[in-house]
């Protein structure tokens, strides 16, 4: 649990400190541990940076990563239970 908390805080800090491409990579990694992180960090990113005009890409991207992470997590869990 401690690892998840540290990773989640790291994901939030990454969007403040690193280029967005690196932050995306970090958030995707943390999402493997805790899928909703990507969505919440995406919302956080858009709350800070989004300007009127373009779509809120960070939130949409976070939503996509969260869904993928849930699907992968469920698939892996099913495989583990089957073996």
């Amino acid at each position, binding site marked *: *649990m401690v690892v*998840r*908390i540290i990773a*989640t805080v790291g994901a939030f*800090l990454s*969007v*403040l*400190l*690193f*280029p*967005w*491409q690196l*932050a995306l990579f970090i958030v995707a990694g943390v999402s493997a541990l*805790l*899928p*909703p*992180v990507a*969505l*919440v960090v995406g*919302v*956080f*990113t*858009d*709350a*800070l*940076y*989004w*300007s*009127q*005009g*373009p779509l809120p*890409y*960070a939130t949409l991207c976070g939503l996509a990563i969260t869904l993928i992470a849930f699907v992968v*997590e469920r698939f892996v*869990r099913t495989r583990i239970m089957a073996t």
Partner: protein
Amino acid sequence: MPSGVYMAGFFLVLVGVIILGLRFFAPSALTYLVTPVWQFGNAITNGLHTYGSALADKEDLVRERDMLIAENQALEESNRGLSSQVQDLSHLVGSRSVSAVRILAGVLARPPTVPYDTFIVDRGTDGGVVPGAFVFAPGGVPIGTVESAERTTARIALFSAPGKISEGWVGEKRIPITLTGLGTGAFSASLPRESSVAVGDIVYLPGPGALPVGTIVRVDTDPSSPRALVHVAPYINLFSLTWLEIAP
């Protein structure tokens, strides 16, 4: 999935809802909370840059310094000449009062940390910043407008944001041009093929007069099309801006 993870997920969703609430009902609080982290990040970046410069070869540094001194002198000369020309022209066409007071604002967050063409600066309504004000990079290059201002911070939307339309001019004849933002300071525009624009022509945006923002770096023509596609590279590197000027 263990119940602890479900709880963490629920907690995260709650955090997301709080963030959204802050964004819409108390945007000042959100930026106020993260400003120290942005400042810490900028301090680390500047420290690393200084450390990297200290490791550079001394001979290279001396050569670079001499080159910069010479360049500075040339620019001073050029500036003096231009100032006198402006004075002469002002006498000829009459003078007009233009407010020269601008607000100096430090950049807290910029691309590529920011995934959009947006800057966050450390001056807000307390410092006299108002939405809609023009924003200039050092040297007077217009880069965007203030989109929203909180008490201590403001969000700057750049002219070069992807898809954003700006009206300007190109070349010595000041041919009107409609610029479309491509992101990170670059623009594109479509012009009639016979408009005689060429690589190296200067592109201007309206400010106090016509202010240069970049140069044409490529002109794409197609024999089957009556129009040419023009690509504009910016004068300034948005990634390295640390200070901006805001005209209230």
